C-alpha cells in the first residue's frame, strides 16, 4: 500500500476483529462477511443493524476488494455493530495455518470409527468429522456440500 490510512477512516468497509484465547488475532477490513451461525449462514454488509449471534462450526468468508478469504471458525460469539464486527471464538484458523495432512488423517480415522461407533459417541465423532472437513475445505476449497452429498448417496445404495 502506497498510502497508509488508519483502519477506521474508510466508511464503506466493515472493521472485523477476531479475538481468540491467543490474543487479538485478526484485524481486517472487509466489504462483506459471511459467517456460519448455529442456524445457518449470516451475511453482513456495512451498516448492518446491531445483532448478536451464536456461531456454529464453519467457514467464515471475508470478501474484500473482490478477494475472498476463508477462515475456519469453530463456535463462538459474534457481535455486529454498524461498521464493526467483533468475533470471539476459541479457534480461528487461516488456510496456511491448517495442517492439511493431519486433517485428512483425522477424517479417515473418524470415518472408520463412525462405522462401529455406539450411540453416545456418535455426536462427538460427527463433530470431529465436521471439524476435519471444514479444515480440509478451507485449506483446499473442496466443497463440503459435495462431499456430504456424495456420502449420502453412498449410504442410500
Amino acid at each position, binding site marked *: 500500500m502506497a498510502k497508509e490510512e488508519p483502519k477506521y477512516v474508510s466508511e464503506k468497509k466493515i472493521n472485523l476483529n477476531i479475538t481468540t484465547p491467543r*490474543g487479538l488475532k485478526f484485524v481486517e477490513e472487509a466489504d462483506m462477511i459471511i459467517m456460519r451461525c448455529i442456524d445457518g449462514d449470516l451475511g453482513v454488509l456495512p451498516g448492518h443493524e*446491531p445483532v448478536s*449471534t*451464536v456461531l456454529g462450526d464453519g467457514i467464515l468468508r471475508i470478501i474484500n476488494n473482490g478477494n475472498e478469504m476463508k477462515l475456519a471458525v469453530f*463456535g*463462538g460469539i459474534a*457481535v455486529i455493530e454498524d461498521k464493526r464486527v467483533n468475533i*470471539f471464538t476459541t479457534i480461528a484458523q487461516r488456510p496456511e495455518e491448517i495442517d492439511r495432512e493431519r486433517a485428512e488423517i483425522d477424517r479417515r480415522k473418524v470415518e472408520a470409527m463412525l462405522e462401529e461407533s455406539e450411540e453416545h459417541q456418535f455426536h462427538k465423532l460427527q463433530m470431529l468429522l465436521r471439524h476435519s472437513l471444514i479444515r480440509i475445505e478451507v485449506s483446499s476449497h473442496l466443497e463440503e456440500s459435495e462431499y456430504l452429498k456424495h456420502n449420502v448417496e453412498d449410504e442410500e445404495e
Partner: protein
Amino acid sequence: MSSMRDIKQRIANVSSTKQIIKAMDMIASTKLHKAKAQLEGVRPIYRELKRLVEELGRLEDVQNHVFYQEREIKSSLYIVLTSDQGFSGGYNANIIKKALEHMNQGKNEKILVVGYKGYEYFKKMRKNIIRKVVDVADSQVYYGSESIAKWLLELYLSGEADEVFIAYTHFENVLNHIPYVQKVLPISTDNTDKIYESAMKYEQGLDTFIDHLIPLYLHMKLFRAYSESHTSEQAARMVSMDAAGKNASEMIEDLTRLYNRKRQAAITQELSEIVGSANILNKGGTL
C-alpha cells in the same frame, strides 16, 4: 570452632546447592516467559467477554435468568488455585489465607482445589474438598479448564452449589502478585443502571445467546485465572530463587573468608613455632 576441613566441606555443599538454585531460577524464568505470553493472549478475550456478560446483566429480562439470579445460599463452591510445587516464597500461603478469610464469613463451603500444595493444606484442615486437580501438564490446561467449566455449570444448575467463587493470584508484574477472591456465579448484576430494552437484537433469541455465551465466558474465566496464577507462581519462584542464589553467594563468600583466615592463622602459628625453636637452637640451647 569448626576445623578447616569442615569449612571446606561446607563451601562445597553450598556451591552445589547454588548450582541447583541457579538451574531452578533459569527454569522458572523460561516458564515465566511462556506463561506471560499465554496470559497476554487470553486477557483481551476475557476482558471483552466480561464486558459483554456484564452489559447483558443490566437488561431487565436477563436479571431473572438462572445464571444471573441470586438464590438463597445453602452452599458455596470455592475454586482455589495453588501450585503443585513449593519453592515459591509466600505464593501458596497468601492465596490460601485469602480464600480462608473469605470462607470464614460463615459459608458452607465445598472446595475444588487445584494444585498439590492447596490440596495438602485443606486436607489437613479437614475442609470439604469435593474435587482436586493436580499435576496438570501445561498443554492440558486449556481443555482442562473447558471441562471444569462444564462441570461447574452442571453443579450450579443442579443446585449443589448456589454460588461459586474463585481464588486466584493476579499477576501485576514480576514483583507484584495479588491474591483475589472473585465471584463467578451468579453473575453480579448492576441494579442501579437498568436498561429495559436492548438496542441489540439477538439472532437466535436472547436465551440461546446467553446459553452459548456463558460457557464460553466461564471457560475463558477459568483459563485466564489459571494463567494469572501460573504466571504469578513462576514469577514468585523466580524471585525467591534469585534471593536464595544471592544468599548462597554471600554464604560462600563468608565461608571462604573464614577459611582463608584460618589458613592464615595456621601458617602464622607454624612459622612462629619454627622461628621460636630456631632461636632457641641458635642460643645454644637444646630442645
